[in-house]
Every structure is written in structure tokens, then in C-alpha cells.
């Protein structure tokens, strides 16, 4: 059992007027006298007033209130919570890299640019695509870049009618949201009972309005899309382009390549497959790989190599580009981390990612099935993740997937993803990742067995879980109804 530390006051409750972290103060200069009175701030902003020790203690203690990969098994499906090597962080944070201004001269950035260039190359290789742009700052922005390129392509062909994006209903929410943001209509197609795309529905959905399809593979149902070539054929025949949501690339690394399957564009989540840290919500990096026909439309900048020197390629080189998606060149530091990771894996290590992710997922699936849990797709192999559904337990014991999730916290495991994908009732999407040892998987199974026993004999214990966290279950309804989004001084 694992207990988190107790609660910690809000930083403003530690504040005292006149207190500060003095070693951080630069000398007072009268610089502000140069600001016209009319533009000056009326009263200082309410920021904390604490000593350096208070700040260090507060945030150190806050950190201890988190589960994280570094402290807990964290099988959050779809998120690929694998070990983030410390070296990736320390090498991306070398002082010269941290100190480089993004608009600094290329002469003073050849080292950095070399890393970016080689990263583009390695990503091309693992996806089988023709070119890569590293600028999207997360998966969703990679999706945006992809759909925008698809639109730009059709427009460049003079085909202005294609503004519909097909999205299988199991897709991650970012897929439909991205299509909308790109000004497209979304047409959802269902999956069949085994988790593959419903081919007849797809056939019915395509037409001259079809801009393309966004396919996640392995899908968020945790299975490989077996009809992928059929899907490709149907969409291509209809004149649509093929978008590959590569968030689950971890599952197929070195086994099969989207480019070889005829896809036009893929986004990768470097913060998943290439193990950059999730940072409590981010940052990520959503690099996109493209086919030859989409290459002219890539988001800029990208890195070119000419005569042994590296340089940024931008508007002048790629006049048809969909443009810039970030103020500079995307999440450079995240890309550096991915670069370091990929170099440490090397060609032989990449393949193992998929193999051991699959081994861990299929092992966990087999053991949970033996323990009495129901796989959502019992006929299928797990990819790097899989779904169990608690529909039966919900009926029999009136416990929910959320109850099980919360009870897992008491056992010292972060919960799997709950209620996603939306189409599987009472589901848990479980992704162990390849970096977890068998013993940890076994520990998780033991906990799940305990929980199932508890569901039978003491379901109330589940419904009221967690019991060992600093707080009991939080009232989300109240949070949304009585919005309290900022701290306010006591009246």
C-alpha cells in the first residue's frame, strides 16, 4: 500500500507582505520612470510573497502528492507512460542548448541543427515517409498540420469540394476536433464487433466530398486494423488522402511502416513513442511525416543540409507550405530529448519497443482474463494496449470502472484510462509499456484480483475509494457548478 503525503496549503496562504526570496532580486533601478504614467500599472499583481525556502518546500511537497512514472506503475492507456530516461533530460538541458536564442545565427547552431536534421531522418526511416517536419507542438497540432496539408493539397489540385474528413468512431477526441478546427466536416464511421473499421459503412461514407480519412492504428481499441489495405483502397479510389494517427506508433515500431502502407501523412507523439516526459500535461511534440505529394505543404521551418552545413528551410524554400504553427520552430527541447532517446535505442532497440510493449500487453491481458476480467475484444491480440470492460461487474456488483480505477490508487498503481474509447461501456484501457518488469505487471494483476474479490464481498469499499490518498474522492460535479478557478484573499 502506498500513502501520499498530506495536503499542502495554497501558496498564497503562505504569503506575507514584505517577504521575498531576496537572493533572486536584482538591484532596484529607476527604469520604470521611463514609462508614461498613463500606462503604468495601478497596483502590483497579487503574486506570492514567500522566502526561497518556503517556495522550495512548498513545491517539493506538492510534487510528492503526485503519482508519476518515476514512482509508480502508470498503465494509462493511449498515453504510453514509459520510462523517461534521465539522460534525455540532462543532455537536452546542456547550457549551450538552453541558452541558444531561436533566432540566433545558424553559424552558432550547427550542433543543434544537426540533431534536428538527424531526427527528421530517423523519423522518416521508422515511418517510411518521404519528409518530416518537427514543428507541431503536440499530437493534436500534428493532426492539424496533417489535415491542413490534405486540404491544401486538394486546393492546389483545384479541388475545392473536398472538405469532409472520415473518422472512425473509436478515434481519439483530438481527431474530430482537429478536423473541425481545420474547417472540415467530420463524418464518423463505426467499427465492427472485432474492432476493425466497418467496411460497408466506410464505402457508404466516401465520395467526391471526401478530403481524407484519419485512421488510428493500432486503433484506440487496442487492436491492429486488419483491413487497413482495404480502407486505403476505398479512400484512395474515392480520391481521398490517408492520414495516419501515429500516437500508437509504439506498438508497431520496426514492424510495419505507415509509408509502406500507402499513407500520405502521419503524426507521431514523440512524448509517447520516443519517451519524452509528459510533464504533468506536456510538453509534447507532434512531428509529421509526409508522402512525396504532401511534402511541398509541410509546416515550416524544417532543417535542410547543404554542403555539410545545416540551415532552416522556410517560406522561400517551401512556398506552398501550410505555414507556421509556432512562434519559432516547435518544441525544440522535446525534439532533442527524442533524438537522444532514439540514438540510445538505435536500430536494434526500436524493434524491441514494439516487441516488448506487445509482450507486456498480451501478458497482462491473458492474466486479467484468467483472473475473471472481460476483454472488450476477446478474439483479438492486444497491440501495446488493450481494453477490459466491467459491464458484467457493473451489473453484478453495481461497481463502475471508476470505482476500480480509484481503488487501484490504494494499491499503489496509477489507474488505466477510464471511459475511453467512449464506445466500450465501463472500460479500462490498459497500456503497460515495454519498460515495466514482469513483477510489476504481476503486482498489478494481484491488485486487480483483490479488487474483484472486494467487488463481491465489500463493494462499498470500491465505491468509496480511494482510502489512502491525501483526499477521498473529489466532487467533480461541484467543481463544474461552483466554479472556483483562482484563489481569493479571505474577505
Amino acid at each position: 500500500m502506498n500513502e501520499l503525503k498530506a495536503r499542502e496549503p495554497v501558496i498564497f496562504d503562505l504569503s506575507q507582505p514584505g517577504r521575498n526570496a531576496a537572493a533572486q532580486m536584482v538591484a532596484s533601478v529607476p527604469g520604470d520612470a521611463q514609462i508614461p504614467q498613463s500606462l503604468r500599472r495601478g497596483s502590483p499583481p497579487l503574486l506570492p510573497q514567500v522566502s526561497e525556502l518556503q517556495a522550495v518546500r512548498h513545491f517539493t511537497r506538492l510534487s510528492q502528492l503526485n503519482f508519476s512514472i518515476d514512482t509508480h506503475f502508470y498503465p494509462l492507456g493511449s498515453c504510453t507512460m514509459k520510462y523517461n530516461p534521465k539522460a534525455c533530460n540532462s543532455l537536452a538541458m546542456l547550457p549551450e542548448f538552453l541558452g541558444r536564442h531561436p533566432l540566433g545565427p545558424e553559424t552558432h547552431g550547427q550542433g543543434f541543427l544537426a540533431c534536428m536534421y538527424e531526427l527528421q531522418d530517423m523519423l522518416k526511416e521508422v515511418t517510411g515517409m518521404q519528409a518530416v517536419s518537427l514543428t507541431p507542438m503536440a499530437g493534436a497540432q500534428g493532426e492539424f498540420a496533417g489535415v491542413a496539408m490534405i486540404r491544401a493539397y486538394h486546393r492546389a489540385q483545384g479541388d475545392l469540394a473536398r472538405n469532409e474528413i472520415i473518422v472512425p468512431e473509436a478515434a481519439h477526441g483530438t481527431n474530430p476536433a482537429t478536423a473541425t478546427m481545420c474547417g472540415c466536416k467530420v463524418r464518423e464511421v463505426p467499427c465492427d464487433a472485432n474492432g476493425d473499421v466497418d467496411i460497408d459503412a466506410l464505402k457508404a461514407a466516401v465520395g467526391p466530398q471526401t478530403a481524407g480519412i484519419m485512421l488510428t492504428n493500432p486503433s484506440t481499441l487496442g487492436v491492429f486494423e486488419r483491413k487497413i489495405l482495404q480502407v486505403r483502397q476505398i479512400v484512395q479510389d474515392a480520391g481521398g488522402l490517408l492520414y495516419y494517427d501515429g500516437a500508437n506508433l509504439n506498438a508497431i515500431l520496426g514492424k510495419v511502416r505507415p509509408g509502406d502502407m500507402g499513407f500520405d501523412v502521419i503524426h507521431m507523439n514523440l512524448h509517447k513513442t520516443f519517451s519524452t516526459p509528459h510533464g504533468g500535461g506536456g510538453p509534447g511534440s507532434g512531428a509529421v511525416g509526409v508522402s512525396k505529394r504532401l511534402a511541398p505543404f509541410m509546416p515550416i521551418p524544417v532543417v535542410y543540409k547543404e554542403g555539410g552545413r545545416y540551415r532552416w528551410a522556410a517560406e522561400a524554400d517551401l512556398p506552398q507550405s501550410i505555414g507556421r504553427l509556432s512562434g519559432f520552430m516547435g518544441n525544440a527541447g522535446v525534439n532533442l530529448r527524442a533524438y537522444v532517446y532514439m540514438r540510445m535505442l538505435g536500430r536494434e532497440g526500436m524493434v524491441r519497443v514494439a516487441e516488448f510493449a506487445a509482450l507486456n500487453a498480451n501478458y497482462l491481458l491473458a492474466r486479467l482474463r484468467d483472473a475473471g476480467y472481460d476483454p472488450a475484444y476477446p478474439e483479438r491480440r492486444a497491440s501495446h494496449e488493450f481494453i477490459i470492460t466491467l459491464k458484467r461487474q457493473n451489473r453484478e456488483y453495481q461497481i463502475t470502472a471508476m470505482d476500480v480505477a480509484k481503488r487501484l490508487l490504494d494499491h499503489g498503481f496509477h489507474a488505466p484510462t477510464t471511459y475511453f474509447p467512449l464506445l466500450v461501456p465501463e472500460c479500462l484501457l490498459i497500456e503497460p509499456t515495454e519498460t515495466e518488469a514482469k513483477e510489476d505487471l504481476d503486482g498489478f494483476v494481484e491488485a486487480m484480483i483483490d479488487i474483484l474479490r472486494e467487488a463481491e464481498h465489500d463493494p462499498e469499499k470500491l465505491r468509496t475509494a480511494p482510502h489512502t490518498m491525501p483526499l477521498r474522492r473529489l466532487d467533480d460535479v461541484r467543481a463544474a457548478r461552483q466554479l472556483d478557478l483562482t484563489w481569493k484573499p479571505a474577505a
Partner: protein
Amino acid sequence: MAYIPHTDADIRAMLDVIGARSTEELFDEIPAHLKIKALEGVPAALSEMQITRLMNERACADGRALNFIGAGAYEHYIPAPVWAIATRGEFYSAYTPYQAEASQGTLQLIYEFQTMMAALTGMEVSNASMYDGASALAEASLMAVRAHRNSQSKRILVPRTLNPTYLKVARAIAGNQNIVFVEADFDRATGCMMPQSLQTHEGQDFAALVLQQPNFFGNLEDVRALTDWAHRQNMLVIAVVNPTSLALLEAPGRWGESGADIVCGEGQPLGVPLSSGGPYFGFMTTRMQLVRQMPGRVVGRTLDAEGRPGFTLTLQAREQHIRRTKATSNICTNQGLLVTAATIYMTLMGAEGLARVAAASLQRTQDLVTALTRIKGVRAAFNSPRFHEAVLQLDRPVAPVLAELAQRGVIGGLDISAQFPELGHALLVCATETKSQDDIDAYANLLRDVRGAA
């Protein structure tokens, strides 16, 4: 096997439980002819020692020249505790706090961050971050169009004094939804928008006016008058601000009669290193009234089953994982770790520390301008009050001068001549509190030399 913990015995035992003979068999649902043999193009694995050496060599090659570029990314001193704590595994290797009870650390920190950003900008609510400043403006533009109650307009008025990259990004992103950005010119003498120059746009239907303060040139706009003008024109006001400057400059929430409606900007100056351009974070704050139109994650304080206060993600019905096609944005992963750093940074600085940084930066830039304009052929382009950036005009092309300076260890600013041809040989410079008088003198002496030599 790097990062793979499996022993041979583990593999055998696990395959047995699965009922498979080999790991290869686990991929039997993939059509066989699609499978590849190997990734020939990827180099062989390096040990951590080898990659460490390689990265050190590359970093050393890039060096640490003295930098005077700002232009949207600013070199401020970052207190040592900031990253010592932000990189603690519990922050670094956690994800979005979906399981609130096991993520109170991240959640409470975001709530504190929201409070600080709301305070700094003078607004009521903040989200938990956007990707960066430029994309935050794109999102703010979409939000303004969505949120405007009395207008269906998809047109947004932007000053030419806005960071040109921000406009490009806003167009690249919001352009897909047919949002049109109309540029309003600036006054050559002041390098600012002038309320008069907006007269041509009066009476036209715009969803919003964008105001950047300080503007791309570093000049201070008359945001009071502009805000009031925009509101009279039935436009919303989107403020794009530098957070450091807000320690001294009026908060957007109090611009003019009723304040800006949406505030966004680049959070990088708040404790995030330059790092070649990212990861940074965008921020966005707004009025409570518009909170349901705001993109991005939001944390709220609530109670637990025993009535104790705690924190949780809230208003998720705006987000893509619930609302899908109808979401306020497609953003999912955001810039959490940078928010962590910024929250620690703001805590260590406090209002006093941030004001000192702002004032020192302002003073340093003033000193730099004074030192450089003493050189023949160098003059200040504008006569406005400014924050910590300035445009200089040279008597010759900027690029070769910068190249020569760089070779001698000084990165002398950004050549903006191509983007603003009307300014001639224009150089945008910035000096923050990190620059000493010696640094400024070194730059000035070098520039004098380089000019002399040329």
C-alpha cells in the same frame, strides 16, 4: 536491451501464459507482406556515455555567444530552484492529472498558476496553458469569433506592430476556419498604432482588435485609447502581452473603460530558458463570462467526500475528449512542465522581483540604445516610450554586420529589414537584466570596430 527489463526467463514465462511461441507471433494480425525486416537507416545504438559525449561536443560547437536578440523570446535569469524542482520525477514524469486524488501536486500547482496569471493580467480566469504565444493568439482569435455576442464577423483587425510571426501563425491556424486578419498600419515616427489611423476601419464589422503591448518594436501602445475605441466599435479586444512587462505596465484587464476581453501571450519570460525556441508555453486569461468559450485545460477547487478542499480538472465539457467536433479547441497535451517552472518562477520573484527584472531590463535596453546610437551611422528608429526592445536604423545592410559581430562572439539583434522594408536597415535589439554595462560596452565597441572595418 536498452530500457527493456525482461530476462530470458521472463520472456519464456510470459509467452507461456499468453500461449504464444515467440514475440513475433504477437504481430500475427499484421498482414505479413507489410512487415519490414529491419530499420537499416537508423544508426546503431549508442550507450548513454557515447551520446553524452556527442551531445556535449555539439553543444560546445554552438557555444555561448552574448545575445541581444529578443523578438518574442527573452533571456532572463532563472533562479536555480526553478528547474531543480520542475525536473523532479513526480512533476516531470506524470501526465495530465486525470486521477485527481493521485495528482493533487500537479492540480494544485495549476490552480496556483491560474491565480497568478489572472492576477498578472487583471482577468478573472486562466487556463492551464496553450502551446506557445503565437498559437495562443490563433486560439484567442477563434475564441473571439465564437464568443462575440453581437457579431457574426470572422474578421479580426491586427496592427502591423504585432510580431509578424504571430500573424503568420494565426493565419495558418485560424485561416482554415475562414478567419480573416486585416492589418492596420503604424505611425512611422512613433512605431505605434495611432487611434487616428484606425479611422479607415471605423464602422466596419470586426469580431476583435488585437493589441500587442509592448509591440513588436518594443514600443508602448496607447492601449487605453485603443481599447476604448475597439469597444465603441463593437469589437472584442485581444491583448497580447509580455508577462514580465505586466509587473510595471497596466494590466490588460484594466485597459481603458472596461479592459481587454481575452489576454494571451508567450509565457517563456517566466522562467523558461531560450532553448532554441521551445518548449515554451502560451497563456490565456479572460473574463468569467467567457470561460466556457476558452480553450485548454482548467483546474477548479472542489471538495472531497469528507468535505476537504481539493483540486480537479473541470469544465471538461469544452474539451475535445468530451465534446469532440464541438470542442473549443483540439488541444490535448499542453505545456504542463513549463507551467510548473513558471509557477515556481513567479513564486520566487513575487511582484517585487518581477518589477525589478522589468525595470532593469528596460534600463539595460535604454543603456544599450544610448551606447549604440553614439556610434556614427546608428540611430533609433522611433521616439516612443518603450519597454525592453528597440529598433535601430543602420546606414548599411544589417546582415553582414550581424554576421561579423557573431563571428566575434556577439549576437547583435535581429535583422528586420526584410519584414519591414519601410524601416530601411532595421535592427531589433534587446537587453535584459542579464546584461551588464560591460556587456553593453563590449557590444558597442565591437560594433564601432565592425563599422570601421567595413
